[in-house]
């Protein structure tokens, strides 16, 4: 009777908050944009970013629980968010994102963009060393960028870099990059990792980068260990001697491990787990920068009718979902834009309200020809506990408006194939994650776009988006993006719910943890308090 055991397993697989696991490109955040807000769940501790009162000490080992296994140690090939959050500590690009979402110089010490926006010139920082002890040269930069953009062998590894047409070495300290079209947002792509020339194909036994930590070992299913890079170019960093990114198989196991103090730091806690750990750990929380929504397939009944979509938006009690699933720490949203992208975000929560408007919903359903209500299936990827719980809450709550949701759990890969790629669904609760560019979120809702799995179709929206994309100033961009959001919300393309918080448990002995507006775990600033 071995069989039972196998089936049970499934329950315990990774559960993560935030949607499309592979769905991030490595572009980072605009210089002007956001200040990630940090809130605090437990109220016991100040924000995790800086604790000026405590004295940083050097040394020590930390175990960080991570949820997903590494998909590749090659920084250009890694696509899973869970991998990138670790590799952030090993690799750096010419530029690097800081905790405010701003770009700072890393391997480059300076850069400039030509007036037509087609040519980028980078000056390399002196004495940046790879983990193998060699200095970073212009050759290495050229090799890395060509490899990532596909100029080297025709296979682009990072899609946003496909705009590059050439990478030229001007002198030993200067590299010039030319692109085929001007785009304000391209600069974020230069966070792509710099690796030693030729290492992608020949060296390979060790991932070698320039980051604050260097690679020690990796065991599938167990984790990855890094150690301090003594030659790191940022003076005084990192503090820790060794970090073990340990793969924890599921949220439930993570909780047990935390209780047993076998890990020191863990993100992605659920609300109730956070409460359970509040006495033993510092609990820190910040927006996760993922957009959770009940995605409605605009191409199939009943959601081909805008009134039905609006009815769902009215009927949905986002406050309740926020309260039940994330303990009220989420940010309610109505459109597909991150609140943390302050320049582009427009608060449209008044359109449908954040609570349930049952009367309005019923009225709209009746107008749409469904006086007795509607019934549809909601597909939810079963490995994301928060989405499953949200579905349960909403399904229960929307019954009152005559909206019956049949929850259907599916395995993640099935979700990807059937829902995300195949658009074979009526409704689905999941989240889309983002990099720090507004276009990443907005581009997908253009008619016929390959990522437009909800089949949203609005000429007005497309026009607004096109204008935003072509805009050469941030103000102009923001204006059109906001317009596009308004159109989308009016059409009720999909029923957005919230930007759920990310909640971490941090050992009480540690401080200096910084939240980033992107999905990374920067261990370089973490230290043991005296």
């Amino acid at each position, binding site marked *: 009777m071995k069989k039972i055991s196998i089936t049970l397993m499934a329950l315990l697989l990774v559960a993560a908050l935030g949607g499309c696991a592979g769905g991030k490109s490595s572009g980072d955040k605009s210089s002007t944009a956001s200040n990630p807000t940090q809130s605090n769940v437990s109220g016991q501790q100040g924000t995790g970013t800086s604790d000026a009162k405590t004295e940083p000490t050097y040394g020590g080992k930390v175990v960080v629980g991570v949820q997903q296994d590494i998909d590749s140690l090659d920084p250009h090939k890694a696509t899973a968010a869970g991998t990138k959050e670790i590799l952030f500590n090993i690799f750096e690009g010419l530029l690097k994102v800081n905790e405010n979402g701003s770009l700072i110089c890393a391997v480059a010490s300076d850069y400039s963009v030509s007036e037509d926006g087609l040519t980028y010139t980078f000056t390399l920082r002196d004495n940046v060393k790879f983990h193998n002890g060699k200095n970073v040269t212009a050759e290495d930069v050229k090799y890395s960028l060509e490899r990532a953009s596909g100029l080297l062998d025709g296979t682009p590894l990072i899609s946003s870099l496909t705009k590059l047409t050439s990478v030229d070495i001007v002198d030993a300290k200067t590299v010039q990059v030319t692109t085929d079209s001007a785009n304000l947002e391209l600069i974020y792509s230069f966070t792509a990792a710099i690796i030693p020339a030729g290492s992608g194909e020949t060296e390979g036994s060790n991932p070698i980068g320039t980051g604050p930590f260097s690679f020690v070992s990796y065991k599938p299913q167990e984790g990855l260990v890094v150690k301090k890079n003594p030659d790191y170019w940022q003076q005084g960093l990192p503090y820790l001697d060794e970090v073990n990114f340990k793969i924890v198989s599921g949220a*439930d196991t993570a909780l047990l491990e935390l209780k047993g103090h076998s890990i020191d730091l863990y993100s992605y806690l659920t609300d*109730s787990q956070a409460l359970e750990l509040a006495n033993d750990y510092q609990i820190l929380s910040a927006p996760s920068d993922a957009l959770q929504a009940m995605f409605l397939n605009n191409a199939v009944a009943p959601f081909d009718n805008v009134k039905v979509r609006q009815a769902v938006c009215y009927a949905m009690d986002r406050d309740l979902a926020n309260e039940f699933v994330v303990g009220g720490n989420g940010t309610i949203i109505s459109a597909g834009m991150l609140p943390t992208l302050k320049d582009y975000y427009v608060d449209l929560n008044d359109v449908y309200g954040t609570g349930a408007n049952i009367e309005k919903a019923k009225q709209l359903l009746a107008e749409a020809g469904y006086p007795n209500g509607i019934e549809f299936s909601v597909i939810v990827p*079963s490995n994301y506990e928060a989405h499953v719980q949200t579905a349960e809450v909403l399904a229960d709550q929307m019954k009152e408006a005559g909206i019956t949701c049949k929850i259907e759990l599916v395995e993640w890969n099935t979700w990807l194939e059937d829902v995300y790629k195949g658009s074979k669904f009526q409704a689905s609760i999941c989240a889309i994650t983002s990099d720090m560019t507004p276009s990443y979120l907005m581009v997908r809702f253009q008619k016929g776009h390959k990522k437009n799995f909800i089949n949203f179709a609005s000429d007005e929206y497309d026009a607004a988006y096109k204008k935003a994309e072509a805009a050469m100033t941030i103000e102009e961009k923001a204006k059109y993006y906001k317009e596009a959001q308004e159109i989308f919300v009016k059409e009720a393309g999909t029923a957005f719910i919230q930007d759920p918080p990310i909640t971490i448990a941090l050992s009480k002995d540690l401080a200096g943890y910084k939240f980033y507006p992107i999905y990374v775990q920067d261990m370089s600033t973490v230290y043991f308090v005296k």
Partner: protein
Amino acid sequence: MKKVAGWFKKQNKYFLVGLAMTGLAVVLGILSFFWTPYGPTTMSAAERFNAPSFRHVFGTDNFGRDIFSRVMQGIGTTVIVSSLIVVISAGAGILIGAITGYFGGILDEAIMRVTDAVNAFPSILLALVVISILGSGKQNVIFSLGIVFTPSYVRIVRSEFIRLRDADFVCRARLMGVKKLRILFVHILPNIFSVFWVSVTIGFNNAILAESGMSYLGIGVQPPDASLGKMLSDAQGYLGRAPWYALAPGLTIVWIVLGFSLLSEGIRRKEASKK
């Protein structure tokens, strides 16, 4: 009244205790179709994680739902689903095991190889195949787990049929000219039940647990409906904070399985004492 008392006196203790335990569970399960103390899916923000009390006998869960009501509903679903799984797999096991055991030869070899193969096949993979062919739905959990559990029954039935195929009474039935199917199912089959019953008990236990795993894959019981296995796995995350959430469905499973085991132990002893 006296008759009833007399009947009780005649039964052995295992039978009575088992009957009482399963009986209580089944009654609660049936009752849940008509009445539960609270709505099994009714949420209440104010009553999340209430410890067991007079208001909520088993406490409440992370959505403030009454766990006792959900356990009742869970018993209903779980008992029906696992019974059907057992019926399907045991039925298929009897059919295949009887034929292969009695006739032997190439057919036996071939079927045993397939049985071995299915036995080694991960049930998650099998379930995924079943969903992609038949679509998701509660009936498919029954179907795929039915397949998963069939080999164990095939083995038992087959070995019993091999043991009995040359028994004197079977020999004589053959001489009488009794048709093969009749020999298989009328003459031999009733003789294997004492052995078979034991494996049905074990199979029932396994089916209850396996069902919970399947809802994860999108077949079987879907939230917000409750099944004991699913409740148990949902509750694991709240072990420290709300241990009753895990204990209620966990102990209920133990209760049902134990009751069922005792019942069958009682029946077995009754049969044995008759002989």
